[in-house]
């Protein structure tokens, strides 16, 4: 699996007009979109953590679980949208760089797990929320979803940050 597959695809993305423009004519794109990525992460992940802590049963215990979920969701979604757009632009500008980054691939494998965890929780355990909405300590399945959410999203954050270092990298002369 190393070097990673699909190199031709990443090279093709790099030839697209917007990609070329960002890479060669817009030197400030990286700092700009990386900052946007980090700020939207504060909104998304910060509020996801707050909800997870309620699910685990350690914070906001006076508030029903469904209320925390419903009221924070629009803001989590806004954060997720800005993160996705800024992240996609960062990738679009330097696809071959990310192709050669081991931690980028790991991040892209862990992220679907984090999303799967929230979907599974939402369509199974959360369906019975009315029964335990006010309980300071939600059922085990809910706590597990909350812990998994924190662990998996911290992993996504950590692997994303590790992309910035030289470790596990194929250095390319040509983009």
């Amino acid at each position, binding site marked *: 699996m190393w070097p990673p597959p699909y190199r031709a695809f990443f090279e093709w993305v790099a030839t697209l007009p917007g990609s070329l423009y960002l890479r060669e004519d817009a030197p400030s794109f990286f700092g700009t979109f990386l900052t946007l990525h980090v*700020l939207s992460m*504060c909104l998304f992940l910060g509020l996801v953590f707050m909800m997870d802590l309620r699910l685990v049963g350690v914070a906001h*215990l006076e508030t029903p679980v469904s*209320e925390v979920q419903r*009221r924070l969701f629009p803001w989590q979604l806004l954060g997720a949208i800005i993160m996705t757009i800024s992240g996609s632009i960062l990738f679009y500008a330097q696809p071959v760089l990310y192709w050669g980054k081991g931690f980028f691939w790991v991040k892209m494998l862990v992220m679907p797990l984090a999303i799967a965890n929230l979907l599974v929780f939402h369509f199974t355990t959360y369906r019975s929320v009315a029964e335990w909405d006010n309980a300071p300590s939600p059922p085990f399945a809910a706590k597990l979803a909350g812990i998994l959410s924190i662990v998996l999203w911290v992993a996504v954050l950590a692997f994303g940050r590790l992309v910035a270092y030289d470790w596990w990298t194929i250095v390319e002369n040509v983009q």
Partner: protein
Amino acid sequence: MLQPFFKWMESLAVYRSSIYLGPGVNLVHLVSMVTFMGALLMVDLRLLGTGLTNHSVKQVTRTAQPWLIGGLIGLALTGIPAMMATATQQYASNVFWAKMYILFTAVIFTFTVRRKVTQADEAHVSRVWSKVVALISIGLWLSVAAGGRLIMYL
């Protein structure tokens, strides 16, 4: 004036024992930041009239506060060594100093004006003032986060 002090901090080479120390400290800094910002935004959104509106500002603040303080302590404990490791570079960076001035302002604001508004009885605080305080708080802390990110790029 402070240059010798910054040179001395860098000479301590706080990360010398392991190449994993820098990235590790950085990661804890980011997780602390996310926790801090989550607790901050929950209360600020409530002040803006959204989020957990079935509860009073006071209630939301009380439940968010331990995570705000915990996050801030984590940020300080990791931010200080991260700064010391590259102290001369930080000293020379305008963005670093801008971040420090804004951080100083944000901390003072949070523990005076914002604290007063979040502890007060809502009947005694005008809605407009609550919203202004929330917007200033969000603006200050997002600027601190942006400053931290941009030290390397500006």
